[in-house]
């Protein structure tokens, strides 16, 4: 068994989770505040990856990023970037695919915090940003853990989108889930089993860690 696909999967999950942590939390904060029709439409679009077959999403991403498309050719001409069949393309696709896993739990937790917490902070002279970092974020810690782990684990097990946008280039886009499929396709069940066991073990350890970190939370770690 080669370890490169496992390493690639972990790298992809780490990059995706980090990017989503940075963009998903401000997005969740924005969505958790006053409702408007525009926000409903945006939230519906962000939730689409949850219900859309991964192959459909992967197909449209492939069309969007292909060198023949407007965006693909613009990226290639101006930045010499090709997102199709590249690791960078996998990261972009994973960020889109896993976005709801980061945004939904954080948005829900922020929306359930009593409004008076932020109001009390404002009356004490604290800005919205200070209030967000000192009051709101620390009080949704368990949801932040949940969102981070769900995003990481979901990206780790990604298959359809990854296959469509990245193919199965050795050492570049052939992540563990593709390696399992490839091994089964070539009747190498022993190798497929080894990859599966490693993925199972990694995911299990992550979930256990979340339960340990959130053991004092009133809610269950995955609520």
């Amino acid at each position, binding site marked *: 068994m080669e370890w490169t696909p496992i390493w690639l999967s972990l790298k992809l999950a780490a990059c995706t989770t980090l990017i989503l942590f940075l963009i998903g939390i401000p997005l969740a904060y924005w969505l958790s505040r006053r409702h408007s029709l525009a926000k409903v439409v945006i939230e519906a679009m962000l939730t689409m990856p949850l219900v859309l077959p991964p192959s459909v999403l992967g197909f449209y991403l492939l069309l969007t990023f292909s060198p023949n498309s407007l965006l693909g050719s613009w990226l290639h001409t101006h930045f010499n970037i090709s997102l199709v069949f590249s690791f960078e393309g996998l990261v972009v696709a994973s960020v889109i695919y896993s976005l709801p896993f980061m945004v939904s739990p954080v948005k829900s937790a922020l929306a359930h915090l*009593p409004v*008076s*917490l932020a*109001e*009390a*902070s*404002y*009356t*004490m*002279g*604290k*800005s919205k940003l200070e209030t967000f970092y*000192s*009051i709101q974020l*620390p*009080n949704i*810690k368990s949801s932040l853990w949940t969102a981070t782990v769900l995003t990481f684990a979901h990206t780790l097990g990604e298959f359809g989108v990854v296959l469509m946008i990245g193919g199965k280039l050795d050492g570049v886009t052939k992540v563990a889930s593709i390696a399992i499929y490839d091994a089964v396709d070539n009747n190498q069940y022993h190798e497929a089993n080894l990859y599966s066991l490693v993925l199972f073990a990694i995911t299990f350890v992550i979930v256990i860690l979340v339960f340990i970190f959130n053991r004092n939370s009133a809610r269950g770690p995955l609520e």
Partner: protein
Amino acid sequence: MIEASIYKKIKTYKGNSQLIVDAQFPAGSITRLYGSSGSGKTTFLKILAGLITPEKGEIHVKGVCWLDTHKKINWKPQQRRVGFVFQDYALFPNMTVQAHLAYATTDQQLIERLLLIGKMESFRQHKPAHLSGGQQQRLAILRAMALRPELLILDEAFSALDDDLREALIIELKIILKEFRTTTIIVSHHLQETAGFAERTLQIEQEH
């Protein structure tokens, strides 16, 4: 002197109504605010604190304009220095008693004095989840006082305190309020609850 003239539309389960308040609060005075449930007491207090903006209105504090909807003046809550004790206390679950006060002020002497007044010295490292209802309410009052507020708003802030504790807190609070020259408005449904504390009353009712 705090002068407030407010007009705010309110939606209730009975339909639309309006909150109209025209009131003056002498500097350093303590006013008991009362009215039926849903009459708009909390809305009025939040307007004073800058947390809600009315359709029309003016608020002047010691000659300084905090709000004038006509002139489009509206100070943010951060600029008004209003100590607000919320009905649900709004304590921060992630902070200890000491951290709550330190969030409001850097004056260590004031923090120690407030802890003494509220009989909270031995609970300084406790988080709200490990405090009784009465202790939580005291902490909310102390946190509001830590701001040295121009205006102190107490939204049913004595309801969880027993008689002895309330009387002792009232005596200490009156001293510190006088020292800070803070004007106070307290919402209470029970006249007895604010006996010996509030010297004026103001009734609030919605107009349909």
